[in-house]
């Protein structure tokens, strides 16, 4: 057995009192972000491959069933071309939410959240680590989706007309969903609560956000209803990045996304700073 006494810098032999590092996003953030990424990567079949396969099935079924019957944007692009960016964004959003929400609720239920509450990690670091981890998973799923849909559509349709818009909506959308997932995870006291969030809020809003159709094909009332769905702006703006065509002005969409980014971030930060349902 080695001589442990020679290896331990103790209060008497080294600096007696330790000081934490000062950067805004310090080592605690890096470690927690790494842990969040490692967590979903370790179960990649469940967290990346499965959603990609599920979304590809949506593509096969909907494109086969509807491509002959649905005209979008006055026939400027085919239905399959229209469908793919929407499906990619839907998968990106749902997986970003799933990552932060499941990570938080599992840590709470298994009570191992203590491991990140004991170290000198700030609320901002926890927030950023969870949200960036969610963004990483959402964007990973989106990238593989994009790659695997290339054989199904003309390649020129899958090269974004304006990559900056694509990037802005992908980043903004995953930020919103990662934050929403964090809020849901903190608020939920059991898996049932999270299921309510997922099945009655996230799922309907993503499905009714114009993923499978252009809202211009809807009756006037439902068009108005769609305009109060924030997910619609994320998907419509993302699609604009690919085709340069959208149901609403992309600047309106990006403004809505920005408002929700700020609003949800403030709520999540408030929960973390006050220790809501985290610290007694």
């Amino acid at each position, binding site marked *: *057995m*080695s001589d*442990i*006494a020679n*290896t*331990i*810098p*103790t*209060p*008497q*032999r080294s600096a*007696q*009192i*330790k*000081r*934490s*590092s000062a950067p805004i996003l*310090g*080592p*605690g953030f*890096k*470690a*927690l972000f*790494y*842990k969040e990424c*490692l*967590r979903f990567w*370790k*179960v990649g079949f469940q967290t990346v491959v499965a959603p990609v396969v599920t979304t590809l099935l949506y593509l096969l079924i909907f494109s086969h069933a509807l491509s002959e019957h649905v005209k979008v944007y006055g026939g400027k692009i085919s239905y399959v071309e229209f469908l793919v960016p929407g499906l990619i964004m839907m998968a990106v959003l749902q997986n970003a939410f799933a990552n932060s929400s499941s990570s938080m609720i599992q*840590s709470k239920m*298994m*009570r*191992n959240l*203590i*491991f*990140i*509450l*004991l*170290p*000198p*990690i*700030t609320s901002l670091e926890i927030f950023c680590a969870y949200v960036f981890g969610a963004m990483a998973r959402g964007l990973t799923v989106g990238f593989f989706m994009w790659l695997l849909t290339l054989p199904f559509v003309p390649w020129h349709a899958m090269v974004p007309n304006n990559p900056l818009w694509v990037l802005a909506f992908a980043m903004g959308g995953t930020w919103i969903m990662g934050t929403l997932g964090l809020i849901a995870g903190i608020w939920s006291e059991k898996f049932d609560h999270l299921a309510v969030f997922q099945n009655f809020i996230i799922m309907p809003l993503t499905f009714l956000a114009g993923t499978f159709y252009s809202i211009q094909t809807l009756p006037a009332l439902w068009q108005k209803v769609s305009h109060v769905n924030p997910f619609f702006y994320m998907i419509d703006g993302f699609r604009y990045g690919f085709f340069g065509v959208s149901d609403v002005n992309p600047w309106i969409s990006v403004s809505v996304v920005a408002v929700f980014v700020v609003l949800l971030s403030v709520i999540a930060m408030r929960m973390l700073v006050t*220790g809501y349902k985290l*610290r*007694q």
Partner: protein
Amino acid sequence: MNQASVPAVAAVELVGIRKSFPNASGNVQALDDVSLSVEQGEFFALLGPNGAGKTTLISILAGLTKADSGSACVMGFNTVHEYRDARTNLGVVPQELVFDPFFTVRETLELQAKYYGVKNASAWIDEILEHLDLTSKAKANMRALSGGMKRRVLVGQALVHKPPVIVLDEPTAGVDVELRQNLWSFIKRLNSEGHTIILTTHYLEEAEALCQRVAMLKNGKVVALDTTANLLRGMSGITVQISADATPPAWVSRGGMQASGAFGYTLSGYAELESLLAAYREANIVVKEMKLGEADLEQAFLKLTSRSAEIIS
């Protein structure tokens, strides 16, 4: 500056800590004006029956629970206003057996080191694994470990950033005797090198053997705070356990039924033992078996907390 003239900052300083929790019948006062100080380098025991407030006190120190009033400092850093520095100086082994099922033992320790900003922790993690007899399990998933092994990983997680103050909340619960001895020799070595150790345990003989000072909590209040030696001195005398069908009427108030089924008495000396045995004879109660012992921390604990032995057995 003459360093000898500068008073050393206390490892842990608790002043007027109060905490209540709501329950169905109103509020339960978990901690009621708790004040105590633990000096650097001390091996300190925090004892008390279940529900006395030990874990709540540790949670407040660790920043997991917010006190209603009062202040807590670790190495001079306030746990609320200077929480980052306070937590950097503190390592806590939680009572609850918790783990993250996604990671291996080594990954768990590496992540915990990184949370504290420890760089190049591999060599130290190797040392911890060796001393906690976990080297062969380094690549095993946390789910695959026994309860005792998980407990040792928790100890490792608390030590991974080499904190000056280490709080161990029931660290040996579920750990077998041999490994318990290894763990204590490791902790004693850390203490001898200057680390402050704060311990809660149900094994009172451990606290008696290891700790220089003891605080006893009851119903959220400190009922005793003294050196272990002084507490034992206050319990001078002998203890007697008598197996019998009853206790003599005159001794009912002094002899409580213990977990073993025997009646336990604390006597001032052997002269009083003769009186006790005479009382048994007069009452025609047959003494089936009798054991004598010196006063220990358990007696002090029972006396001060006025609880039956069943609670701590």
